[in-house]
């Protein structure tokens, strides 16, 4: 210890150096601000009168004022150059800094810059910058935004100017001017809240938090409709109240005493869409980015408020597309709002934004005959089989496939000798395609057989409210009518089954480390082996029966119909499997009329769908007249060698030109014509990946 002290004392100059470091004036800490200039208005007014033109407008004066108060760093640099300290420094009242600011102001004012000068001012255009600079310098000094005193002594660097004292008073009030009820007169609205009852809330505008903002409520004295900033409350004839969610709302209520503007709520929805952010992730982001840097007494944003903002914004956004204001029973909980909103605005999964959509990517002009008819096998695929033999069909109907290939060669020879000139059709029609695919996403529903109702409680219940009541206190093992033991879901006889279930699903194994660390579908040696059923895409699905009702069932997948350009047309959830029957029913519900049906539907299991449609009669009844089912290219190259129906009818882009609307001719760099696919059938691949990410963050 002594030796250490001696060392320190012997190096005391080091200590003095450290102390000196602390004495050096440091840069102002972040957050320190200079108060907004508080000079008498008379002084400011006199300066404006003496220095600017008499016709200068209020906005121009304010622009000049805020140009000064928003650039304290530049004023520091300018002032330092005006006050030289060293012999080789030159005092300059017209510094490059103030000229730079004057030039920026001049550009901002445009033609209005002439208002900065009095009539008596005769200034060449070349000297205008200098003249504006002098006025800015004078105004900065009048506002006392000058870091030197009258004796040239430095008074300290100007810090950022606080605008807190000039923040406007905020009030949240209805944006309707008069009563908008159709059956009522456009009467003026009266403010009904007593002064002592006016709620004081926190209002977030963009990223700025305003506290203690009063919320005013209007009322039509005739029809008694109540008007708030984001909604109307209408009394129905039966005495019940209906809430109208106004699409034109400027502010939205997202908490008991928290309102936000539409910039904030839009940002929430866009963050979820673009970053796949969960409500908790967005809450963390917002609190860390904005709440932390604002002084005040407001509480941090919660993830429930973020979800509320998402629902309130999205309800209005989708209602706007349908050109209605959503009307629900007043006073619904947020979960009921989403339920009701989906039943009214969800349109059974039809996406309103895609209504009547057409573009160059998803429609092609109809062609009766192909531009190039080749002698290739009809099973040859564009992009895969150029300059190579197509693998032959093996097994049943191989002879038919060989005959079809021979026929195609003969047709090509015939077409070459008798070129069929396609006449220009004055009524040009178009070919359309829809791409269908599913994504396996887990969403829970009632465990009872053939019931897909919502769970009574999404955190732990296995039944919907009806079956929860129906099953009562009976053992949850199927076909067991014995009462279950309290605290468990099974009777005495089935306790072993219940305990095994608890062991497998408890926190440490199911929802804890395993779920965090394990990749999807990964099976490690120390984990219990769970028999997952693998459903090949070209085989019929198998209905798996469980022997108990311990856990809820899960929907098998979300099926989407998409245009080749990426526009989503509709979606649906399939409870048990992506079966051809489900797909056919879904397609028929979306394309209920002949006119609405696309010419081609691309599905990765189209051959199976086609086979089912032929067997159950849907083909003749619905699709035969309007639509053809094709598979995707990956499916086709594998399946065409084993399945005759797939090989003959489901080729997504025949190389021989037998489906002229599925291929288009292009020219390569050497001037040779070649076929390419007319439609993008891989469009759902990316969408499915994005959807999976989105859902995984929120489940």
């Amino acid at each position: 210890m002594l030796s250490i002290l001696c060392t320190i004392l012997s190096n005391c100059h080091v200590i003095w150096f450290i102390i000196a470091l602390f004495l050096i004036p440091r840069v102002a800490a972040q957050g320190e601000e200079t108060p907004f200039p508080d000079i008498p208005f008379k002084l400011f007014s006199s300066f404006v009168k003496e220095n600017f033109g008499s016709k200068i407008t209020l906005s121009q004066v304010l622009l000049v004022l805020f140009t000064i108060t928003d650039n304290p760093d530049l004023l520091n640099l300018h002032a330092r150059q005006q006050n030289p300290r060293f012999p080789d420094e030159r005092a300059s009242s017209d510094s490059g800094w103030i000229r730079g600011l004057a030039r920026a102001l001049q550009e901002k004012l445009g033609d209005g810059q002439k208002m900065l000068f009095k009539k008596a001012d005769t200034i060449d255009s070349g000297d205008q910058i200098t003249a504006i600079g002098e006025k800015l310098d004078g105004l900065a000094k009048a506002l006392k935004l000058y870091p030197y005193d009258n004796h040239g002594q430095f008074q300290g660097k100007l810090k950022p100017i606080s605008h807190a004292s000039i923040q406007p008073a905020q009030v949240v009030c209805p944006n309707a001017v008069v009563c908008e009820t159709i059956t009522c007169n456009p009467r003026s609205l009266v403010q009904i809240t007593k002064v002592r009852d006016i709620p004081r809330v926190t209002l977030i505008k963009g990223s700025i938090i305003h506290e203690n903002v009063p919320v005013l409520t209007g009322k039509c004295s005739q029809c008694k409709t109540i008007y708030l900033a984001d909604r109307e409350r209408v009394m129905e004839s039966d005495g019940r109240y209906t809430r109208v969610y106004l699409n034109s709302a400027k502010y939205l209520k997202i908490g008991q005493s928290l309102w936000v503007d539409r910039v904030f709520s839009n940002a929430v929805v866009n963050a979820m869409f673009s970053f796949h952010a969960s409500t908790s992730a967005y809450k963390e982001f917002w609190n860390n980015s904005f709440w932390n840097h604002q002084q005040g007494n407001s509480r941090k944003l919660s993830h429930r408020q973020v979800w509320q903002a998402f629902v309130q914004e999205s309800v209005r956004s989708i209602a706007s597309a349908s050109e209605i204001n959503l009307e629900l029973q007043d006073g619904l909980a947020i979960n009921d709002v989403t339920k009701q909103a989906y039943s009214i605005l969800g349109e059974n999964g039809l996406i309103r934004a895609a209504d009547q959509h057409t573009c160059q990517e998803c429609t092609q002009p109809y062609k009766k005959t192909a531009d190039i008819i080749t002698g290739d096998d009809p099973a040859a695929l564009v992009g895969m089989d150029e300059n190579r033999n197509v693998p032959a069909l093996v097994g049943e109907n191989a002879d038919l496939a060989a005959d079809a290939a021979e026929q195609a060669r003969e047709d090509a020879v015939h077409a070459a000798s008798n070129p069929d000139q396609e006449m220009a059709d004055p009524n040009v029609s178009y070919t359309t395609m829809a791409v269908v695919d599913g994504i396996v996403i887990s969403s829970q529903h009632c465990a009872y057989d053939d019931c897909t109702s919502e769970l009574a409680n999404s955190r732990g219940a296995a039944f919907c409210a009806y079956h929860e009541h129906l099953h009562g206190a009976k053992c949850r093992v199927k076909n067991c009518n014995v009462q279950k033991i309290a605290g468990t879901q099974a009777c005495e006889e089935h306790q072993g089954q219940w305990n095994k279930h608890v062991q497998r699903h408890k926190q440490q194994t199911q929802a804890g480390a395993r779920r965090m660390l394990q990749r999807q579908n990964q099976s490690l040696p120390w984990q219990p082996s769970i028999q997952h059923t693998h459903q090949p895409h070209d085989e019929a699905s198998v209905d798996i029966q469980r022997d108990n009702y311990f856990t809820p069932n899960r929907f098998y997948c979300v099926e989407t119909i998409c245009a080749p350009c990426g526009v989503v047309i509709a979606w649906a959830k399939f409870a048990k499997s992506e079966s051809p029957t489900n797909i056919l029913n879904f397609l028929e519900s979306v394309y209920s009329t002949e006119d609405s049906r696309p010419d081609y539907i691309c599905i990765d299991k189209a051959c199976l769908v086609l086979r089912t449609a032929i067997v159950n009669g849907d083909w003749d009844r619905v699709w035969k007249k309007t639509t053809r089912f094709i598979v995707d290219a990956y499916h086709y190259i594998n399946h065409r060698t084993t399945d005759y129906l797939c090989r003959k009818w489901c080729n997504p882009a025949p190389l021989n030109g037998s489906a002229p609307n599925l291929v288009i001719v292009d020219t390569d760099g050497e001037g040779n014509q070649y076929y390419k696919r007319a439609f993008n059938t891989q469009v759902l691949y990316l969408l499915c990946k994005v959807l999976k990410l989105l859902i995984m963050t929120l489940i």
Partner: protein
Amino acid sequence: MTTSNFNWFLHVMLFYHTRHVIEQQNIKKTSGIEEEKDEEDTEDTGDDIA
């Protein structure tokens, strides 16, 4: 997540996706600028003076 929340969330996301795709198509149509060009990163040092 409850079923109704799931349904609404998925519907909203697909609606926004569709609207985004259509907006991008309109931008391309009006400006003729390829999206890829917007997303090109440039090696910029951030200095205004070379």
